[in-house]
């Protein structure tokens, strides 16, 4: 086999893996969009916030330490404990549920039945708020996140492929873990939204807030539920990305990597998020590999969007999105 082809295969596989990581972020968007028609701009910040909280709890940091110290002249920083990862994850989940409750109570409760762009705007406000809040709560330094996930090249694959091609493929262990988790998440979420009463109610709410209210669906409950779910997905994404790059402000920017995925897969489709992720991941990596060197590289950011755009021209609702109903 020619070298270029072997390399292309490696790039392809890594593209798939990268795609899964994008999809993890995109899933959170899909959940909320599906249940409320809200395009949740703050999903990235939620991932950051979840990861920050997780690290904070694990390391026993005192929340708002800086604020407290600045106001009272004290010098407290740590509680002095170190929690095991699992316990910290559960606690963080609790925090995310509280967040979901607060978001609903303080914001979306008052914005029922508003146009999508207004709701979108509200999530922007929320993103601003949480950005500041997360920083005040846990500090703006870069934190190392280690919940014990394996990371680095998978030697087994490296060796096997070396045996086959004379060139060992690089596959990151973390990506493998992410893929498994993402697959489980997607299956569970699909089952939930298609086959349960709450799932149906969730889709109903997305279509028409008022009508949903009129049949007795509690928007409150549905929204707290999906925001919690989205919080959970954000936490998972936060763990994966945080392990890769440390927990820091830029974690919130992964949202930008999820958007083309979302658009390609369809805002309303859970499987779409995964398939979209895979296509985007592979597409952008292969493009960078094959065409990138000719036009100066660093093409991934825009190419992902252009790729999604091309798909959209043919399917304006994304690959799996609900058909946009146009009637008069």
């Amino acid at each position, binding site marked *: 086999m020619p070298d270029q082809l072997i390399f292309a295969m490696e790039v392809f596989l890594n593209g798939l893996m990268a795609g899964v990581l994008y999809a993890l972020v995109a899933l959170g968007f899909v959940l909320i969009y599906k249940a409320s028609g809200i395009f949740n701009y703050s999903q990235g910040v939620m991932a950051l916030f979840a990861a920050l909280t997780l690290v904070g709890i694990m390391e026993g940091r005192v929340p708002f330490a800086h604020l407290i110290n600045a106001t009272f002249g004290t010098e407290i920083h740590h509680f002095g404990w170190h929690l095991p990862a699992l316990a910290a994850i559960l606690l963080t989940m609790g925090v995310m549920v509280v967040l979901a409750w607060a978001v609903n109570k303080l914001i979306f409760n008052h914005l*029922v039945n508003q146009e999508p762009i207004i709701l979108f705007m509200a999530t922007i406000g929320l993103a601003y708020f949480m950005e500041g809040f997360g920083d005040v709560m846990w500090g703006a330094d870069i934190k190392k996140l280690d919940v014990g996930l394996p990371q680095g090249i998978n030697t087994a694959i490296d060796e096997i492929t070396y045996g086959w091609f004379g060139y060992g493929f690089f596959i990151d262990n973390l990506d493998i873990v992410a893929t498994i988790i993402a697959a489980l998440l997607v299956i569970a979420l699909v089952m939930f939204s298609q086959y349960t009463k709450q799932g149906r109610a969730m889709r109903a709410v997305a279509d028409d807030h008022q009508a949903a209210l009129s049949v*007795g669906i509690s928007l409150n409950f549905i929204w707290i539920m999906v925001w919690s779910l989205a919080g959970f997905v954000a936490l998972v994404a936060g763990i994966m990305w945080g392990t890769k790059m440390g927990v820091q402000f830029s974690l919130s920017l992964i949202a930008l990597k999820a958007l083309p995925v979302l658009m390609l897969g369809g805002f309303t489709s859970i499987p779409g998020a995964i398939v979209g992720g895979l296509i985007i991941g592979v597409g952008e990596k292969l493009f960078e590999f094959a065409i990138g060197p000719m036009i100066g590289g660093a093409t991934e950011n825009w190419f992902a969007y252009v790729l999604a755009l091309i798909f959209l021209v043919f399917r304006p609702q994304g690959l799996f999105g609900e058909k946009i109903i146009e009637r008069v």
Partner: protein
Amino acid sequence: MLDAAKTQTETLLEVNNIEVIYNHVILVLKGVSLKVPKGGITALLGGNGAGKTTTLKAVSNLLASERGEVTKGSIIYRGERVQDLTPNDLVRKGVIQVMEGRHCFEHLTVEENLLTGAYTRAASRGDVDADLEMVYEYFPRLKERRRSQAGYTSGGEQQMVAIGRALMSRPETILLDEPSMGLAPQLVEQIFNIVKSLNEEQGYTFLLAEQNTNVALRFAHYGYILESGRVVMDGPADDLRENPDVKEFYLGMSDEGRKSFRDVRSYRRRKRWLS
């Protein structure tokens, strides 16, 4: 048709002198009071913009989602003030509204739409399926289209979905907003017959807002006529049907019987009780 015994029974829903304001500035209801007796069919009549929909929404607490609020008066259901309940609490209490203009869940199939109606019920699968069958019996057309997305069904079909969906919650009181709108004549008849049989056989209470005064007064026991946010007349349906003003303005009858729509071409100043 008025059943004197029925009007004597307990008042299920009582609206006392409510005022509704939209957007903090637009005053729409200027003191509306009504009483809905248990097991009765009460009709709310009135022209466009009289405030029928607003009244119903005030009762079902859907106003908040339209930036409207009840600023005065009270709404009592079964002797309990319900103004501050959420719409879903109210549905649990047995009050459900069929909204004007259908409001189906476009992306759900017809059947899924109907199933959402059973959201508040803790009923078993079997019960729900039985109710589904009941709705399909009332509206065979829906059975044919059960797997289509509601967004693609015709206007009339959507109206059936909306009503069927409300029935699925097995309510005690149904607030029906313009059920006849956009329906073919025999279907209008059919829907009112369904209302009647639900009322008589299952004891459902109805408060219905309707433009089609003719049909409404034929099936209702008691009627209220709203104009510009005020109740201008009320009485047993039969009395209203005989009232000459009602006859002229709401039933389109003149002394010579029904007028042809062709005959009203000449300009005619509207007579109003108010304004």
